[in-house]
């Protein structure tokens, strides 16, 4: 797939204009954005179950699906903050239920240290939520999202070191 240089330049220009355009339209008092990193086997299915059961919850959440909580690098959380997310949820299978036997255990260890580090460096740890939600817990997904969204809405404006100024 060879591109000619004219096309490359045009593509680059398109990208730039597009991102400038979408950023411009943002309103200051817009709803806070929440990113949820979830595992494919438990929480994603739990969220789907909330859907098939027609439960209702806050619209703020955007789900990013990964195979396992073991894949959800804590540094993704920092990246999400940098890109303007006000809250980040990490969710996967309950202990003992991991599709890959131990991904959630490894992840739990990492997040234990990571959360302490974040908090120590002055990040409000209320902005990061961690939960175990199984494929049958559509109702838990709904309550975790709603409670977390409400909590995030009540937080003061971001001023910590990873927030976009």
């Amino acid at each position, binding site marked *: 797939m060879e591109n000619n240089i004219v096309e490359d330049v045009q593509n680059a220009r398109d990208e730039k204009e597009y991102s400038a355009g979408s950023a411009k339209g943002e309103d200051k008092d817009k709803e806070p954005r929440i990113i949820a990193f979830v595992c494919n086997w438990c929480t994603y299915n739990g969220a789907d179950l909330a859907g098939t059961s027609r439960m209702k919850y806050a619209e703020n959440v955007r789900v990013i699906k990964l195979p396992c909580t073991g894949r959800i690098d*804590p*540094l993704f959380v*920092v*990246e999400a903050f*940098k890109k303007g997310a006000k809250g980040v949820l990490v969710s996967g299978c309950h*202990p*003992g239920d991991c599709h890959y036997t*131990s991904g959630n*255990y*490894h992840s*739990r*260890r*990492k*997040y*234990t*240290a*990571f*959360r*302490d*580090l*974040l*908090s*120590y*460096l*002055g*990040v*409000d*740890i209320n902005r990061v*939520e*961690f*939960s*175990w939600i199984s494929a049958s817990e559509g109702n838990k997904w709904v309550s*975790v999202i709603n409670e977390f969204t409400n909590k995030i809405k009540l937080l003061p404006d971001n*001023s*910590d*070191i*990873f927030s*976009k*100024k």
Partner: protein
Amino acid sequence: MEKMNDKLQKTAKELLENKEVNLIIGFTKGSNPLRMRSVFITDPDDVSKLSFNAHCVQDLAVFLKKPEVKKFGKVGLIVKGCDEKAVNTLIQEYQLSRDNIKIIGVECRGVVKQNLADKGEDSVKQSTVYDKCLVCEVHTPLLYDYLVESDEPAFEINGDIKPYAKIEELDAMSVEDRNMFWQKEFEKCIKCYACRQACPLCYCTRCIVEKNTPQWIETNIEETGNAQWNMIRAYHLSGRCIGCGECERACPVNIPLMLVNEKMARDVFEKFGYKSGVDINAKPVFGTFDANDFNEFIK
């Protein structure tokens, strides 16, 4: 000290002469008498350069990651107890083979803070040594092939000592205040990565900060990227940092990095009962798990 130096030199000479090692890394007198610098000895006749005293601050284990040192194969390292933990961690993390190193451990009574030494301070006491020396549990290295005992008395500790006292202060602060504190500190960062270069455990040949697909850390000098670098450095050393303090000593803008490292070390010990660099056969704390690990923060 003379007795120590004699034994150091004798041990080093024997190792080199018997070809048990091809290189000895140790300390020698610097141009300033209160500064010691590293020295690399391959010729048995040069061992007279080796010396040890309370100004041997540097963690010489840092050289073990260098390709220039690795090519020597078997290496002898003169090392204090605190720094020796770095050797153990390197062995744990497959960066070093136990067969390739002869550890010449020195019993250390504490090292004098370099900024004080530069002003002429030469005595080892509670007020002149580094914080790590006040809480030192490894005056005698945990692992060694040869031990050079100290002929100096231990310094006295009086009253209630609080090494790294700022950690508790920070813990007691509001999150906004902590943020202010670190924001101010990280503002100073010039991303020179001296902290990384000085660290014996930052051995990646391609650091995460140099990876740009994706760009994990913003490399331009602005607040977010600075904070991110310092945060990720600390995160990568959580459960691994052995507390030698070299990063902080190397920092040209004096960011108190040990406050982060020590905090994380305490945290890992509190949550997982793990101390780094203690046992070459232990599983690193973030390379394993326990089904009953800390779960309180999870909904």
